[in-house]
């Protein structure tokens, strides 16, 4: 099939192209099962080598190629042409400064990530037998969903509250905090809840739900933010997430 790409472009080094503009590219012999990322590569390799975008693993795990595709935040490597049709519009994700074509400045995003203590804290003595800390399969299950986050920024840059105020930590940072707050082995939940109770923490979330469908890892982000809000209200993460039945194997 033939596909027309309409791409939002910007090149800070070329006068006349240093303001955002649209450019169209036509591709033929496109298979419906081709990924958008492959088509961007074809444009770059066959038509215009100046087209700039980030990418690495090309199968939805590394989180490099978040873009706004036909108006929705997606990973370019995880959306197929057949799900978009013959006209495909690609722009950089919103809410972060555009540096060149589809490349945005990720620093503000990672700065928010670092704000929430995104690391495991447990200063109690290690088990005397030199082995792992124990955790029940049920306790492990409580935070399973938020361990899937790949920091692609699809959620944060789909969030109107983040667009309105870039100092809001944003959904991704809250997802990262959630992963530790609800980990039975971690001891810094109270500190993280304090951080997220600040004005630029969870309360800027207005439960708009844009983040959840934007997530390429299908994390229930709005739900996770709600669980963090509840933990702040109750002063503890205890008992907030209902344990699903975990099957044990022999």
């Amino acid at each position, binding site marked *: 099939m033939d596909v027309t790409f309409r791409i939002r472009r910007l090149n800070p080094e070329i006068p006349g192209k240093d303001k955002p503009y649209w450019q169209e590219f036509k591709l033929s012999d496109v298979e419906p*099962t081709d990924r958008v990322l492959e088509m961007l590569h074809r444009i770059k*390799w*066959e038509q215009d080598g100046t087209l700039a975008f980030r990418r*690495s693993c090309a199968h939805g*795990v590394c989180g490099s190629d978040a873009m706004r595709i036909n108006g929705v935040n997606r990973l370019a490597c995880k959306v197929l042409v057949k799900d978009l049709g013959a006209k495909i519009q690609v722009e950089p994700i919103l809410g972060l400064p555009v540096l060149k074509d589809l490349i945005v400045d990720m620093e503000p995003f990672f700065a928010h990530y670092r704000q929430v203590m995104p690391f495991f804290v447990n200063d109690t003595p290690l088990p005397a037998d030199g082995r792992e800390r124990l955790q*029940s399969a049920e306790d492990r299950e409580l935070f399973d969903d938020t361990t899937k986050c*790949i920091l692609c920024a699809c959620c944060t840059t789909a969030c109107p509250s983040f667009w309105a105020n870039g100092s809001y930590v944003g959904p991704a940072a809250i997802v990262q905090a959630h992963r530790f707050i609800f980990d039975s082995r971690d001891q810094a939940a109270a500190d993280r809840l304090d951080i997220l109770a600040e004005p630029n923490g969870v309360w800027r979330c207005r439960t708009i739900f844009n983040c959840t469908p934007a997530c390429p890892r299908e994390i229930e982000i709005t739900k996770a933010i709600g669980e963090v809000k509840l933990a702040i209200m109750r002063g503890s993460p205890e008992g907030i997430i209902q344990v699903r039945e975990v*099957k044990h194997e022999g």
Partner: protein
Amino acid sequence: MQTHQFDAIIVGAGGAGLMAALYASKGGANVAVVSKLYPTRSHTGTAQGGIGAALGNHEPDNPLWHAYDTVKGGDYLADQNAAKVLAENAIDAVIELEHMGLPFDRTPEGRISQRRFGGHTSNFGEKPVRRACHAADRTGHMILQTLYQQCIKNEVQFFDEYHVVDVLMNQGACVGVVAVQLGTGELHVFHGKATLFATGGWGKVWRVTSNAHSLTGDGAAITFRRGVPLEDMEFFQFHPTGIYKMGILITEGVRGEGGVLINRHGERFMEKYAPRIKDLASRDVVSRAIYLEVRDGNGIQGKDYVYLDVRPETVNRYLAEAGETRRVTGEEIEKKLPDILDFCRVYLGVDPVKEPMPIQPTAHYAMGGIPTNVDAEVVIDENWTVLPGMYAAGECACVSCHGANRLGTNSLVDLVVFGRRGGMKIAEYVKQADLIPLPANPTAEIEAEFKRIRGSKGKSKPGELRGIMQKVMMDGVGVFREGPNIQKAIDTICELRERYQNDLSLDDQGYKFNTDLMETWELGCLLDLAQVTAKSALARTESRGAHSREDFPQRDDVNWLVHSLAFPKMTSPYQQGTLEIDLNLNKKVDLSLAETDPRFAPKERVY
């Protein structure tokens, strides 16, 4: 040009680099991590099935058995001292990852859950053993995240999106690297006492690969250009189960959970090739079996792929046949292999719980690389002479614990074990070593090379050259090899190199995020590594592990229990003209375990 000074410079921010950074900084070194990607984009994050360690959480296990499986899996080319270190240190390393917060799946007792994996057995090959510690099918993702988190906690300094393009040597030592800051195009010099390369593999040499676009072997190529040898480059692993045509990896964990390979006749063909452990034979064996099935016309619809079947009814049928009591349900498959199911549903429109997955072997892992000892120190000859200040760990390094074929899960073990040992060694080294000055004009040569590429006015698009290289390497230096085809690959690579030097066509002449330029420079690395790989493959006139010569089908322990060391014959790293390569075949395999334990002596490898 800006110059930065640190005790230690870590190039690459995957598992090995982050582990080394963490341990070097914990040991008191002032460390910079320089990476062309944001750390969380590194390829460690795509590892799926598990990390091997003889924890024995389900059934008896022993690090010596792990070492045995590693040596046997490596077709006896692994250095046995390194395999021993790998297996012994694996236990501590995995426990330590858990202490860092890694969310492993759990047993009913709350211990780290383990699954079966190809080539891992109990009691010296007796039967499959549950050794792969896992976090669903995203174990690598969890390792990468956990290590990055710990680096943030320990305030390690990161230079993200700084692409290292040259290594600096002076007074016989490594004194740092040159990097392009991708956002500005400026060159930065990183000057230090110790430099560790953890830049990953070079799967992009081949057409069908599980590897990320960024896996272009930069670290291996730039050290080679500065005279450091590359070891065992002929050994590149093809993983048996890549998604048909796309190469995306389907973890061996699928077979660990009971999935089986099926040909067009519905036959579980691995019973013919590995009667004892069947679908869980090591990867080279299974990849060859798939090629042979396809060659015999047993591919699905006569094409070049077979099925991987993990439907509960199939798994349960074979479990029952094997007399096992365990049974699986669709729900359990969903829970244990969520990412795999997602890949198949998104990219193939296939639901693996209801339909089998079309798969073919995919270029996956470099066993060879920058030679090191077990402390990640780079060694430059057959006498284990250390190059002061230079270290390497992870896939870009060759310890060699994997020998001629790496076992599943052992790449993650390699990262954490040798990344950690390297970091510790660096912390020790920088305390006593002097800072050697930079060479004169440290950026002159690389600057000239970039100027040449940026100003190219020829007709050859880099994408076209890359495509030709990938095809010829796939056809000539893939799962099966034969002298004339390897020679054809070498000839083609030389032609491509000539066009790369004299006829490039580049669109982007800018500086900021010039991905056109950087991809083209990466292609230069791939061409060098492809040529070294093919040259080493042509020289090795035997079949061993992942290197399978149809014209020399037997393993030859009399002549070939040696590692290959490839040296460049160049006076400057960007010398024009043909790349001449010298091969040294005098580095003997370490057989130290076999000296006291006959079970480790080379023998025919049957599964």
